[in-house]
């Protein structure tokens, strides 16, 4: 079966984009990815080569009163006529859309496909956004019990603190690191550094989690174009990030039904498939994007992915291992915390930033990165999607 590579990337600004509608965001990301396509292929490949569109989006129906995004996005980015579909898996919608595109090309059905992750979150009141996001949880037994997503992650954090002695300070370091990495990111919602004190003085949202433990409510879109090895070779494209592994797993919808609430089985299952099925050597991973929707989730992700031992995530972070010069540089462009978290766009945005590290044009470019891993999580480890990209 063919290999598949990412040939172009592009995104809109992330933030509270009051003047941008859902479709404006799609157009911004579309124009950006087509511009990159033009640059990367020296004008040889254009949008006319695109054979299919996969849109990642969680809640446009609830948050922008618009469904049927396959048609809407294909129309507004100017590729009307291609088969198009919207993929939904809560906050992992972006990575799932990417995965479907990947499979379609792998099957030989298409040679070139476009993936676009998008979310418009500021067109409804913020308390309604909380309701919309909780659609990723168990409606009957979590939403109707007044639980929020911050609440769910707070339950995880409190238990992690109890079982492993994880500290407030360790969680704060995660947000501090992500903000530091995002300072240079022109697309980021927040580009200011923050201190541990800032985090610990910020307003409590769901104890023990505070405002600066949480990724914000964000508008944004991100897009990549992927192609088959045959197409890439035929067109002599050389600056490609190859997809070395695509893996996804699910867990039970209710957080109350989990085997554990301090480790996410979906992530562990997905990474097991990465290693066993796709033969990825985790030691070769030089950069990672993990889903820091809440600080605790970055910590748990690092443990579940095996970058550190279960329960030792706090110490690992304290030792600076997630910094740009650490053992595993994490969220090198700011993560969800600093860049923002337009739900359906995030999974695609993570892949853009890994691609840039592989290609060598990241704003915080690391040296000698051959492989990078992105973990996109839907819900609270309800869906975990992992992609590994590499130079060859």
């Amino acid at each position, binding site marked *: 079966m063919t290999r598949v590579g990412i040939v172009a990337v592009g995104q809109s600004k992330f933030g509270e984009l009051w003047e941008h509608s859902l479709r404006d965001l799609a157009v911004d990301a579309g124009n950006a990815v087509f511009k990159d396509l033009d640059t990367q292929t020296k004008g040889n490949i254009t949008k006319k080569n695109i054979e299919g569109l996969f849109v990642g989006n969680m809640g446009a129906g609830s948050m922008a009163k618009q469904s049927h995004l396959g048609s809407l996005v294909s129309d507004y980015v100017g590729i009307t006529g291609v088969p198009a579909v919207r993929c939904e898996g809560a906050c992992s919608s972006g990575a799932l859309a990417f995965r479907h595109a990947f499979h379609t090309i792998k099957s030989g059905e298409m040679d070139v496909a476009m993936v676009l992750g998008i979310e418009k979150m500021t067109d409804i009141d913020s308390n309604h956004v909380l*309701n919309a996001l909780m659609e990723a949880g168990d409606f009957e037994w979590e939403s109707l019990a007044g639980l929020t997503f911050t609440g769910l992650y707070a*339950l995880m954090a409190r238990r992690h603190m109890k079982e492993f002695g994880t500290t407030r300070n360790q969680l704060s370091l995660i947000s501090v690191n992500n903000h530091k990495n995002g300072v240079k990111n022109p697309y980021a919602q927040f580009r200011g550094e923050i201190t541990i004190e800032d985090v610990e003085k910020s307003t409590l949202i*769901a*104890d023990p*989690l505070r405002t600066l433990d949480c990724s914000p409510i964000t508008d944004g879109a991100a897009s990549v174009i992927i192609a088959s090895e045959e197409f890439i070779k035929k067109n002599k494209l050389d600056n490609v990030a190859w997809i070395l592994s695509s893996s996804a797993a699910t867990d039970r919808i*209710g957080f*109350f039904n989990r085997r554990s609430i301090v480790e996410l089985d979906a992530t562990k299952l997905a990474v097991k498939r990465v290693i066993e099925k796709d033969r990825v050597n985790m030691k070769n991973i030089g950069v990672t994007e993990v889903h820091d929707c809440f600080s605790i989730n970055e910590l748990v992700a690092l443990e579940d992915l095996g970058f550190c031992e279960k329960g030792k995530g706090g110490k690992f972070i304290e030792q600076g291992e997630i910094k740009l010069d650490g053992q595993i540089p994490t969220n090198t462009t700011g993560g969800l915390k600093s860049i923002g978290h337009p739900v359906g766009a995030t999974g695609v945005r993570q892949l853009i930033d890994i691609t840039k590290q592989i290609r060598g044009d990241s704003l915080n470019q690391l040296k000698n990165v051959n492989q990078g891993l992105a973990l996109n999580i839907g819900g609270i480890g309800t869906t975990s999607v992992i992609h590994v990209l590499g130079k060859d």
Partner: protein
Amino acid sequence: MLSVPVFWRMNKEKYKMIGKKCLDCGLVIFPNRKNCPSCDSQKLEEFGLSGKGKIYSDTIIRVAPDGFEAPYITALIKLEEGPMIVGEITGVDIEDVEKNPQGLVDKEVSITFRKIMLNENGLRVYGLKFLLE
């Protein structure tokens, strides 16, 4: 806006904690399912839970979704029959709970009947909450 049947069909579970028991493997199931999540059996019978349990983890929700009014305490509760569920802890003072970094973990609770939320069209949704023992 959610209409009445959404809440109405869950009355049995949310008023009285009537769950299921698997006749094949004996698993107590709550909230209800049609198939046993352990052995996949469809032979389940109604089973009343005691409503007693222990707090596994808890948080104080300070920013509430529509229909709820913060602050309130929400917890994961391990029921004595086995299942875990999410429930609000009522009858306690936030000021007392927030002082303790461990929250209410390991505290024993029992079921009570309270107003859960007010729907947009004025429907009062009742159901289970928990009181500290």
